[in-house]
């Protein structure tokens, strides 16, 4: 029996994106004596935070207020956000953003040298900080580069975490596959923070990078931690057809408009207000038309599709995002990446032609259930960023809240994990080593040394994404969701016959794809079953058979638990502090 190597540290962070790096730095700032392991399946600067474009929200201007940010967020969430958490988030946001400015993030500026802000969808006041239209990229690199100065931080780059380890009723580390050698290692830690991001890749058509496969969600789910609000998946209204590449909401924040095949600004038909002329100095009006929230805009597209008023191309139906009236100068200054992406991947220069766009799976409001301090119900396990559901996003996240979220709660998780690690110094290394050996054996037996498999990873994955789109997409029904649940159960069965051709240990990406698919199947089931159980429509979760919001029954978070059969679903109340549920009003 091969013994697995045990790496010892105080806190292990799984995931090197924005939240993970912020957590790591938080520990370095407050407690540099602690040894921190940052385990990431890719080099940190490859993390998907890099693809975020538009900006990050925080109340920093005179005309703005904490209450307005809270209200926008809570209304945007269709009253499914926990209001105590939202208040905490909104209060912490400005300091976190300024901190990142001090770390060198190249924020766009006003002529005075102060931070510039731009309007964003669903926000009453412009409060979105931005670095042109590569905000996530700049934030991630600023965080990564800043993290390099902390010597207590050890980077385990290209280590693929496979399992959360529990001993004596608390989390004591993870196992991870070192991709270079193909060896399974144990990373023993007094506290574990999951920052692995979302799982957009369970859908066929997504803005998400290849790495977003819900690893952390599934790992937590497998050790009994519930996933919260998984039925809420945000579709971004403007992705490029075919590739799903994101065209940022900032394009609309700067004044871009959406038109159907007749050149008509169709959003006015969907209770999103009346359009102003694009040359009107007041355009774009906040919380109106193109600056409505993402769920409503994506749903409006689907209605247009039903009415046959969209355009059609080789990659399906689409509408036009028209930026021409902004002019070349403004486009190049404020949203140059939009121009680069459309020119390269759609063959369209937005200075001269409208961009073809359609809704595309973008963000998971749901995730690992945590409290306001990012702690899960498993002692010693914390989660922050898209992997977690803390919950500020509820049924629909507002654009530019997620980048701020990963800072606020990334930092929070670092502090909370530090406290926990100091209070719980003892680890059972012998038991952990044994668990590592078991995990090594599981992976060897089920994957790399397995014989007789015949199902291709890619085939199973494609069938999974297809059924997720058809059954659990923007609009769902009992029938479509049941079909998806059945199909996922079938795929779960077939997965046991998965075939790995690659017998090499070094950087075996067929093995990692299989492990990722294994995780994604769990996440997909959690989504479909949660969606089936919620017989109402709220935010991004739209049931054609239950088109109304039902506060009496469903003003509550769903919690999905893994079982050997179909997942078990429970509910817990939403925390309401000062904003009782009301109608979501845009454009009126």
């Amino acid at each position, binding site marked *: 029996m091969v013994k697995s190597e045990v790496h010892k540290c105080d806190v292990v962070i799984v995931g090197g994106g924005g939240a993970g790096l912020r957590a790591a730095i938080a520990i370095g700032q407050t407690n540099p004596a602690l040894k921190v392991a940052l385990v990431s399946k890719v080099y940190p600067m490859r993390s998907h935070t890099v693809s975020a474009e538009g900006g990050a929200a925080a109340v920093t201007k005179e005309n703005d207020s904490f209450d307005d940010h809270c209200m926008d967020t809570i209304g945007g969430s269709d009253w499914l956000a926990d209001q105590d958490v939202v208040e905490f988030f909104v209060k912490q946001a400005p300091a976190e953003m300024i901190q990142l400015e001090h770390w060198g993030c190249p924020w766009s500026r006003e002529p005075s040298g102060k931070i510039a802000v731009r309007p964003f969808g669903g926000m009453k006041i412009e409060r979105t900080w931005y670095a042109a239209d590569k905000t996530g990229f700049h934030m991630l690199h600023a965080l990564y580069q800043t993290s390099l100065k902390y010597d207590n931080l050890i980077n385990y780059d290209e280590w693929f975490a496979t399992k959360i380890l529990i001993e004596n009723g608390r989390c004591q580390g993870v196992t991870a596959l070192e991709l*270079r*050698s*193909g060896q399974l290692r144990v990373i023993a830690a007094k506290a574990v923070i999951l920052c692995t991001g979302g799982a957009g890749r369970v859908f066929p058509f997504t803005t998400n990078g290849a790495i977003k496969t819900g690893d952390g969600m599934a790992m937590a789910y497998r050790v009994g931690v519930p996933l919260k609000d998984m039925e809420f998946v945000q579709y971004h209204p403007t992705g490029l057809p075919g590739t799903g590449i994101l065209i940022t909401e900032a394009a609309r924040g700067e004044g871009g408009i959406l038109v159907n095949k007749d050149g008509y600004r169709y959003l006015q038909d969907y209770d999103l207000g009346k359009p102003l002329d694009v040359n009107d100095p007041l355009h774009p009006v906040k919380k109106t038309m193109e600056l409505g929230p993402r769920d409503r805009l994506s749903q409006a597209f689907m209605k247009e599709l039903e009415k046959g008023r969209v355009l059609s191309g080789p990659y399906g139906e689409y509408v036009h995002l028209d930026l021409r009236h902004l002019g070349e100068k403004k486009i190049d200054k404020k949203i140059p990446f939009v121009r680069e992406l459309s020119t390269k991947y759609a063959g369209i220069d937005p200075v001269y032609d409208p961009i073809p766009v359609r809704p595309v799976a973008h963000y998971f409001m749901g995730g690992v259930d945590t409290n306001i301090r990012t702690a899960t119900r498993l002692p010693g396990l914390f989660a922050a960023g898209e992997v977690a559901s803390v919950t500020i996003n509820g049924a629909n996240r507002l654009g530019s809240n997620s980048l701020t979220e990963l800072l606020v709660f990334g930092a929070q998780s670092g502090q909370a994990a530090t406290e926990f690690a100091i209070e719980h110094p003892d680890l059972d290394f012998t038991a952990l080593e044994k668990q590592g050996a078991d995990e090594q054996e599981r992976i060897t037996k089920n994957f790399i040394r397995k014989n007789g498999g015949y199902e291709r990873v890619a085939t199973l994955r494609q069938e999974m994404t297809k059924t997720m789109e058809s059954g659990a997409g923007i609009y769902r029904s009992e029938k479509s969701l049941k079909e998806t649940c059945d199909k996922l159960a079938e795929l779960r069965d077939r997965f046991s016959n998965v075939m790995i051709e690659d017998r090499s*240990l*070094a950087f075996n990406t067929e093995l990692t794809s299989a492990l990722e698919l294994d995780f994604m199947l769990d996440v997909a089931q959690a989504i479909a079953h949660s969606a089936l159980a919620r017989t109402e429509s709220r935010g991004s979760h739209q049931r054609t058979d239950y088109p109304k919001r039902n506060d009496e029954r469903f003003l509550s978070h769903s919690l999905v638990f893994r079982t050997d059969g179909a997942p078990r679903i429970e509910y817990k109340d939403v925390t309401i502090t000062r904003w009782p549920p009301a109608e979501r009003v845009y454009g009126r």
Partner: protein
Amino acid sequence: MKSYRRPVPNTLWLSRRPYILFIIRELTAVFVGAYCVLLLFFIYKLGKGLEAYQGMLDALKSPLSIILHLIALAFAIYHSVTWFNLTPKIMVLQIGEERVPAFLIAGANFAAWLGLSVILAWVIIGV
């Protein structure tokens, strides 16, 4: 797990067109240097007196000299052109938020080159 280091062939500099052009660019310096030596020789002969100087002029009139000059000139011009084209990378001028476009900076260099050449020709040969 052992990684594989690909051998770097001695012909690396011939493996891609940009590298070849780079080597040519660097070798222009040989012609520049040789010409400086020629200038030194010219001054030396000039200092020696009329006879020596006349010998120098005769040598310069030989077909071989003309051919060598032509070759050297081609390289010297290549040096000038590449040099001025690369100047904007080093001389970065920014007015407010906008950078002065590279072609303007390179263009200014080319203009100076042309101007100085005309002046020099006018002074020396009095055209």
